[in-house]
């Protein structure tokens, strides 16, 4: 998929497909984000979403991530501190997804 903001890398060897997001995720583009997540999850029982380069995300993104985690094993890569990690702990998404932190 050739989307500048949400990039999907196909599964490789034992690794699940990876969705790499960047910039802001909010109501304006959350549908695109969901589409990419669903495409990634369609052929795989696990996906990884890399949010390391996401500058801002809100409730819309959290909802999209919960929705995809309902059907797929979800791995998240996030900065160890900052607003995204805070959002994950407030929502409890960190308790149902496998979270890897990156400094």
């Amino acid at each position, binding site marked *: 998929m050739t989307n500048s903001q949400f990039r999907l890398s196909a599964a490789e060897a034992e690794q699940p497909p990876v969705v790499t997001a960047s910039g802001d995720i909010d109501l304006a583009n959350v549908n695109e984000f969901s589409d990419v997540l669903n495409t990634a999850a369609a052929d795989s029982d696990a996906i990884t979403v890399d949010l390391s380069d996401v500058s801002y995300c809100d409730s819309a993104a959290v*909802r999209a991530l*919960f929705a995809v985690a309902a059907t797929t094993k979800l791995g998240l890569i996030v900065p160890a501190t900052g607003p995204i990690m805070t959002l994950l702990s407030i*929502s*409890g998404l960190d308790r149902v997804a496998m979270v890897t932190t990156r400094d």
Partner: protein
Amino acid sequence: MALMHRILERMQSDLLDALGLAITVHDKRHDERPSVIAALGVGSDFVDAQLSGIGGPLPDALAYQVPVLSLDLWTDDRWPELTLAAIRDRAPQHESSWEQVHGAAAVPGVWADEATVVVCCTLSQPASASTVASLINYEQLVSAALITTAAENASAIADIITVLQSRGAIEQAKGALMGLVRCDAERAWAILRRASQEFNVKLRELAVALVEHISGAPAEQPDTGTPITPDDRTREAAGLMWAALSEAPLPQ
């Protein structure tokens, strides 16, 4: 708000582990506490307990406007004061349910400027991402229903407040009947409903009149809106009903 109850019943058939479900509305334009507009099981008492200051998924969903999930409520480090002991103190009538509670989830939505709705559930199993995904779908349905109701009938929201006001009194009246006639809540509700039909008075006014008749004190009513004041005919009906039930032999 029969529609909201139907939505909750559908949720219950989807969430088989649910011990409680509730739809809570908070309108920030009025400086009021959030109100439960429909609930099943322990839903309403669980919302009230969380709002009493011990915290929980619902206040967090309201404050941060994100879905909130918990695998095990009583041990969740986000709400150290939300413990089995604390909830027992606040709602001892659900003792056996509280012991079964594990997970919970709350999903917020905005249905008007400054007005938030939260759909939440408590489960006998840990909540999962599927629980949240399911609540997200229902939150959209609830928000759509609220928007439609508000658009069609401006007084509909005022009606919600009236229903809320009557609920305290109806519960009190049911409790009194259960004690007097020694019956369960369902039978008490049937007696109350039947009396309201026979005397041709509004059920909520009859409940208020009955509570006032028994206690000699005003019935429990929230501070919001206009209090329910039964007329003389309703008061008389309540008195007759109470006298008749007091004299009747215990039903077998």
